[in-house]
């Protein structure tokens, strides 16, 4: 029940579940079951789909971690430096805000480190009058300096993540997947729990897929 909200956490749990549920074990459980052959085929198909989705999302997450986030981090870091700069960097600062807005939208909300960096930045952007690059009388225009754009991006990402953790992960999936994994490891006959977990796993991966925006990453 520890408060660890890395995306790696549900992915690790699902990988653990998939690793503990071998094809042989699933067949053994299906063999003991009184379900008809159509229902059994449906379970096999769902499990294959879960494994496929999981593999794709793990690949997408690794790609984000190894390539995409580095570029985002670099741009946020550059902006942080410019925020401290004097009037000579005024134009560079305005240009970099535009770049940061684009990159902030690419941050994965599960990426706590970058979300925290973004949360350090957006309150600074709200008051350009307070930045050394602009004097009180030289505030940038709303079109070149959209004060609340980064805050909006941040809030939207936070809401998406809240929805995932509260509605999908905490509420519907976590306990069932943990229980089913435990049952498999202890070699208990728990076909119903396994089937339920496969369904929950697919729900969880669908929600993660939406948040991770893998279509944009892959």
């Amino acid at each position, binding site marked *: 029940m520890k408060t660890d909200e890395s995306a790696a956490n549900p992915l690790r749990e699902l990988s653990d579940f998939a690793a503990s549920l071998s094809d042989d074990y699933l067949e053994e459980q299906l063999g003991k079951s009184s379900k008809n052959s159509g229902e059994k085929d449906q379970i096999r198909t769902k499990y294959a789909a879960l494994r496929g989705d999981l593999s794709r999302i793990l690949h997408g997450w690794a790609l984000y971690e190894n390539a995409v986030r580095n570029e985002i981090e670099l741009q946020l870091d550059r902006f942080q430096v410019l925020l401290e700069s004097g009037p000579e960097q005024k134009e560079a600062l305005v240009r970099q805000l535009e770049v940061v807005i684009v990159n902030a939208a690419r941050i994965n909300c599960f990426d706590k480190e970058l979300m925290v960096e973004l949360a350090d930045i957006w309150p600074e952007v709200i008051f350009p009058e*307070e930045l050394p690059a602009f004097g009180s009388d030289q505030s940038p225009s709303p079109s070149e300096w959209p004060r609340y754009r980064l805050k909006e991006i941040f809030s939207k990402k936070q809401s998406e993540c*809240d929805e995932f953790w509260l509605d999908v992960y905490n509420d519907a999936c976590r306990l069932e997947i943990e229980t089913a994994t435990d049952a498999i490891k202890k070699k208990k006959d728990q076909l119903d729990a396994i089937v339920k977990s496969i369904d929950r796993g697919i729900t969880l991966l669908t929600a993660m897929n939406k948040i991770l925006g893998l279509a944009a990453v892959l």
Partner: protein
Amino acid sequence: MKRTGQWACRTWPGAALLLIMVLTGGCATTKQYTTLAEAGSAYTGAVASLADKASALEVEASSYQLLNERRLLSTQYKDRALRDTLTTHLSSAETNDYRAIQKNRRIRDVAMSLQAYFDGLKAMATSSAPSDIGKKTGDLITQLNIAIKNAGRSISGSDPALLSPALTHMTEALLKKELTDRRKTILNALTVIRQLDEGLERTSTGYGAEVDKSFKFMLVKTPYTDSKRDDLMRLGGMELWLQERRKVMLESSNADEAKAMIDASRKSYDAFSETFEKMTSGNAEVSMDDLGKTVDELKAFNTFVKNL
């Protein structure tokens, strides 16, 4: 670890021992589960107060955003267009705030119901407990389940009615059985409480800093530097400005306070939920020393929240 209870149990006459073992499923360490109930009460009490603080911070941040937007929009719009735009902004902020407040209130209700349950157990552990305490605990669990359901979670519904209404004194072993049998409901409640941490984190990261910056800019810097304003020419305005500036210079910032809130809240959640899970899982033990440390931590959390 204290072993008094276990030792006493082993030395009882066989028949009585057998009867107790059958009734309770084993012996428990003296006062351990009473202490767990005390820890639970301290923790959930603090969470209930924290939920209100979280709402206050959220509303404050949105109020400053509204004021700042008003300041900026006044330079872009005039008359009716300005009034319409401001009305839209206010209405949108109210909707968002109301949603956040409702969510925090539902979490507070769960925390308060869980606290009432732990307080009921504490009362039961003393000889002065009322004779219908067993029934009362059942009622408290019903209330807790209602609060959990209102917070948007499905309830387990499988916890049995446990204690005899005739009980007037709660043994440690019975208390252990009660808490173990109610485990599912309590973990469900803790999952709701965890939402508060997540909401707090959302509020603290950024929003605390926004409040601080807005306060300083609008109430301290602008009245001083804007030569068109005459606030500081009036005695009341001057006194207010001195007071606001003192706050900025001397008091801890909202950003720091919010970060401290979330750190303390997460640490306490982890400490209590881990201890509770261990003590009710049947697979692990918690020493009295470790339990004592958890209780101290949760009491410190309670004091911290009260002083916010």
